[in-house]
């Protein structure tokens, strides 16, 4: 986090399909939030709109601005208060709302905040719809309603009720309860602090060891649940001999797992575990994952004869692919687990439930289950480039491969055979090409990244 004196370019407002993000007090203001809420209300039309937020200290301030903005164009704000993003996505269709606004900067640092826009179908709005919304915003010509048409705010007192009911009717909660699993849960001072202990304890009968479980929004660990941020969780798992440790991001859509030995298994394997349990015990069908997801998922799917479809990065892209392909499960390589029958959205609670169910039914430890998979290793590298060279580099590398091995949905993805691939894309935040590869060992993954880094350097040299 930078100091308040100099305005860093990275702190400027970002308006994208994933929402409107910025640093509060620098680029993201209540006025801006109110205007976007007016645009959203105009875009979805007069009717109920669900509003929820994560635990960030600026959440209430932004919520009040959004309320005023929505009321001014005749919408009925339904306040869910502090609630997980997946909960909000499910609430919108279950309440018959016109749409929803999630106030969360997700895994971004605590001084950020954002608005994320939810459509009536309970999915984040798609790219083309987002463009339409931004057009309405830029027009700044909102149909303000007269006083008698202003609607009162409504409150949703138990926002997660419907969400948790769906999860508990999908899995077998009795099987989990019987095992009385010892679970460490790192809520990251996010929405999980309000809901995860109750979910795991009262609903799934686990013996819980919660940490960072005050919903203060003052993040005592880095908000993104990456392996390197889970030291405290690992320690709790080891000290208490827990069966498993879970970590959530501030808005409760992403999940990370620490195994019974206290080792973070990585977000890719977290997803693979959930996919495995769904295909094994619940239903078989297509699996949708974003492009740079580990082939561990492919290996699991292959065991059940299920097809894997790789999609563009971004929750809405995976969700849309899931609907289109009638997929049963899917997700993103950041620990985003999506189960169609619960709701095609990233949901850490669904993830925890199916993984606990897996432990309960198999009578195996997390490390044993993972040990039965081939080993995978992902290596990430980057090369500094002038941004305008990115398409040239990608085009060039693309033509050195057979078309059948190429997926161009998001950057360039090349299937390199059995357990390996390489993914090359331009960063959205830095002037670099990100080169990521997966292979059976760290050395071979690094070797792949090195060879493509060299290739990229040559292309840059030839285009000087």
């Amino acid at each position: 986090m930078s100091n308040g004196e100099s305005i860093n370019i990275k702190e400027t407002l970002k308006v994208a399909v994933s929402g409107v993000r910025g640093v509060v007090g620098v680029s993201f203001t209540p006025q801006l939030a109110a205007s976007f809420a007016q645009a959203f209300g105009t875009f979805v039309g007069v009717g109920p709109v669900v509003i929820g937020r994560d635990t960030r200290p600026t959440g209430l301030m932004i919520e009040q601005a959004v309320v005023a903005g929505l009321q001014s164009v005749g919408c009925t704000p339904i306040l869910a208060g502090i609630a997980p993003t997946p909960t909000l996505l499910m609430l919108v269709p279950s309440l018959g709302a016109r749409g929803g606004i999630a106030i969360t900067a997700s895994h971004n640092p605590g001084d950020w905040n954002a608005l994320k826009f939810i459509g009536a179908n309970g999915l984040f709005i798609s790219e083309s719809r987002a463009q339409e919304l931004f057009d309405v915003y830029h027009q700044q010509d909102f149909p303000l309603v007269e006083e008698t048409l202003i609607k009162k705010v409504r409150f949703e007192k138990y926002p997660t009720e419907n969400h948790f009911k769906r999860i508990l009717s999908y899995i077998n909660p009795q099987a989990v309860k019987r095992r009385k699993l010892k679970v460490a849960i790192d809520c990251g001072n996010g929405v999980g602090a309000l809901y995860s202990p109750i979910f795991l304890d009262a609903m799934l009968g686990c013996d819980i060891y919660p940490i960072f479980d005050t919903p203060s929004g003052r993040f005592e660990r880095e908000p993104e649940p990456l392996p390197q941020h889970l030291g405290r969780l690992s320690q709790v798992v080891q000290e208490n001999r827990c069966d498993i440790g879970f970590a959530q991001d501030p808005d409760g859509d992403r999940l990370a797992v620490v195994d019974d030995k206290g080792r973070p298994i990585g977000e890719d394997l977290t997803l693979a575990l959930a996919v495995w349990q769904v295909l094994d015990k619940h239903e078989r069908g297509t699996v949708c994952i974003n492009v740079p997801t580990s082939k561990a998922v492919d290996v699991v799917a292959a065991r059940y004869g299920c097809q894997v479809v790789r999609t563009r990065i971004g929750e809405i892209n995976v969700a849309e692919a899931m609907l289109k392909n009638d997929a049963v499960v899917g997700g993103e390589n950041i620990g985003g687990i999506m189960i169609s029958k619960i709701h095609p959205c990233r949901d850490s609670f669904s993830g925890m439930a199916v993984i606990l169910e897996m432990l309960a039914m198999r009578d195996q430890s997390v490390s044993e289950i993972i040990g039965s998979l081939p080993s995978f290793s992902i290596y990430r590298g980057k090369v500094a480039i002038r941004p305008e060279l990115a398409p040239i580099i990608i085009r060039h590398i693309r033509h050195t491969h057979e078309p059948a091995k190429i997926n161009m949905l998001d950057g360039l993805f090349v299937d390199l055979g059995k357990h390996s691939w390489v993914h090359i894309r331009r960063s959205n935040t830095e002037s670099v090409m990100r080169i990521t590869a997966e292979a059976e060992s760290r050395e071979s993954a690094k070797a792949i990244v090195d060879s493509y880094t060299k290739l990229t350097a040559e292309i840059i040299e030839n285009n000087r």
Partner: protein
Amino acid sequence: MTLRLASFGMRGYVGDSLNPRDVMDYAAAFGTFTDGGRILLARDTRYSSPMLHAAVASSLISCGCEVLDMGICPTPMLQFSVQPYGASGGVSITGGHHGMGWNSLSLIGADGAFLEPVGGETVLDIFHAGDFLRKRSDNIGSVTEISGFDERYFETLATHIDAKAIKNANLTVMIDPLGGAGCPYITTFARQLGFNLIGVNDQPSGYLPREAEPRPRSALQMASFIRHVKGQVGFVLSSDMGRMSMVSESGEPTSEEYTFAIIADYVLSRSPGVVVTNSCTTRTIDDVVRRHNSRLVKTPVGQAYIVSALEDELGVLGGEGSGSAMLPAFNRGFDGFLMMGLVLEAMVVGGKPLSELLNALPRYHIIKRSVACGSRQGYGAIEHLKERLYEFGDVDGFDMTDGLRINWNDGWVHARASHTEQIVRVISESESRELAEKRVEMMLRLIGSVI
């Protein structure tokens, strides 16, 4: 074009000019002006008030303000509370005496009075520059709901009026707070002063069951049945409890001009001192003040001017013909509860019903009219009028404190462009109705010809 920005507030028509976005900028300008200080926030019950409340709260928090939320609370109660709570100021969201669809933000300074012009202009400068204090996540402000402010208010009020005398009289009093911000408090008020309350339009609601401006026409409901319920006096108030007109025990809806006159007559009999009013208030006030050998100071129209003159002249009482009064020793704002208390005390101490108190006042015929016009036309018209004064023939003097007032020995006529509406207001007062009519028509004709 319905938006009006003044140094002490912003007023507009909801769904048209009063966009939450502008309201937020205005609130942010005030938050910036107070350097992220402690701010009291109150609202009335208009349909749009909760929305504006959310907008203002959000904006003040972003400036780092510590917002103390009073919920539904009359403007004078907020004004009273600013100093006890050690606040840097207050924001009151109220439709006031305006009709359905209008709403406004009133800015209150650290002294509890409407923000004085110098400060108000700074707020406007910040608003126009859009250069707001913006706190980052760790330093944003907060909102805390507060309660108990009404108890403190009524306790202090009871020391400025003779509550015991009122209690002993066992009066039956009708109060019509317009379903506004006064609703939650009138029962406490009645208990404090020990009278039997008959409430009219006393449930909080954004719906306006009558005209919002307290005046005889808006008192008709109450006037029609006060005798049947044996009410001894009836009070008709605005949404913010800042203005009041009265109904006598005989069912006479009295002109709002006499609210201040009755109060002045009583207060001066108790403790003489300088009285401040505006330049278009009934000459009954001049007579009353003269009767008590006191001094009357006149100001332009508006609460902020009255307060400032009270400070300058060490005045004891201020008020306006629109039906408002304040005792600066109690509260630096026009205050409906105080006004009701003083009128009741005047009745009880004098041992007379309201009708007799009214009859004892020198009464004139007053006619109030208005001409619709654009804001620029309005101010222009007043300028042009000054060039055509000769058309009024023999007059006894002019007063240009605010707009134009023409005085005769037997009356006056006053024209001014409203600060808050797109109209020119004309008031004519004379010893005879015919004369008042004649002069108002003449003024209206002249304005018509210069617009």
